[in-house]
C-alpha cells in the first residue's frame, strides 16, 4: 500500500518536472521559458520530496524532516532567482515574442 502511494507521488513529480523541461524547450522567448523551471521546482520537486519524507520516516527510526528544509529553501530561492533573471532581462531588453502584450496600468 505504502509503496503504491510512493510510486504515484514519484510519478506525479516526474511528470511535472518533465512538463517543466518541455516548457523550457518549447516556449518561444526568455520570459516564457522562465515559467518552466519555476513550475518544475514547485509541484514536481514537491511531490518527490513528500515521497522521500514518507519513505524515510517509515523505513528508519524517527521522522525524516530534512525534506521540509529542502522545500523551504527551494521555495525561497526559486522565485527570487526567477525575479532577478526577469529583472536583468528587462534591463538589457531581451527580445520578446511579438505577440507579448504590454498592458498599461
Amino acid at each position, binding site marked *: 500500500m505504502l509503496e503504491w502511494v510512493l510510486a504515484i507521488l514519484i510519478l506525479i513529480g516526474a511528470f511535472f518536472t518533465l512538463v517543466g523541461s518541455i516548457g523550457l524547450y518549447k516556449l518561444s522567448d526568455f520570459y516564457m521559458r522562465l515559467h518552466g523551471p519555476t*513550475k518544475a521546482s*514547485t509541484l514536481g520537486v514537491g511531490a518527490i520530496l513528500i515521497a522521500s519524507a514518507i519513505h524515510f520516516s517509515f523505513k528508519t527510526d524517527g521522522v525524516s524532516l530534512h525534506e521540509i528544509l529542502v522545500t523551504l529553501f527551494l521555495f525561497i530561492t526559486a522565485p527570487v532567482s526567477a525575479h532577478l533573471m*526577469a529583472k536583468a532581462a528587462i534591463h538589457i531588453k531581451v527580445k520578446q515574442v511579438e*505577440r507579448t502584450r504590454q498592458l498599461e496600468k
Partner: protein
Amino acid sequence: MILQRLFPHPFLTLILWGIWLLLNNTISPGHIVLGAVLAILIPWLTSSYWPEKISIRHPWMLLLYVLRVLYEILVANAVVAKLILGPQKNLKPGFLHYELKLTSSVGIGLLANTISLTPGTVSCDLSKDRRYLLIHALHIDDVEAIKADIHRKFEKPLLEIFVTC
C-alpha cells in the same frame, strides 16, 4: 528595552532556531543551546539590514496562507501543464502591472514570491515608488480577472497578516 535590544526580531530568532534544529535533525541539549546562541546572535548582527520591524498579527493565519498557497500551486500547475503541452500559437503572453495595496516590505516580498511560485505568473520588477509590481504572465485571457485573483487569493490574507509599521 533591554529585551528589545537583545531580540530585535523575535520572530526571526524563533525561525532560525527551528531551522538549526531541523538541519541537524536532533533535539539534543547541545544543539538546542548552540542553536539558541546563533538564533540570538544572527538577528542582532544583521539588524541594520532589517530597518522595519516584522510584526505578525495572526501567526495561525500565516499557516493558513501557506496551506492555501500549496493548494493554489496544485491547481495552477495542472492549468499550466495543459498550456505548455497544448499548441503554442494559442498562448497570449504579456506583462501586466499589478497595483499593490501592501506596504510592508516583507509582505511585498512574500506576495512577489507567491506570484512567482504559482505557475503562470512570474513577478519581474517592483516600481521605484513600490506601488506597482510588474508581472509576466504566460497566458492572459482577461487581465482584470488575473489581478482580481491575485488580490483575492494572496494579497488580502497578507494584508491581514502583516500590520504596517
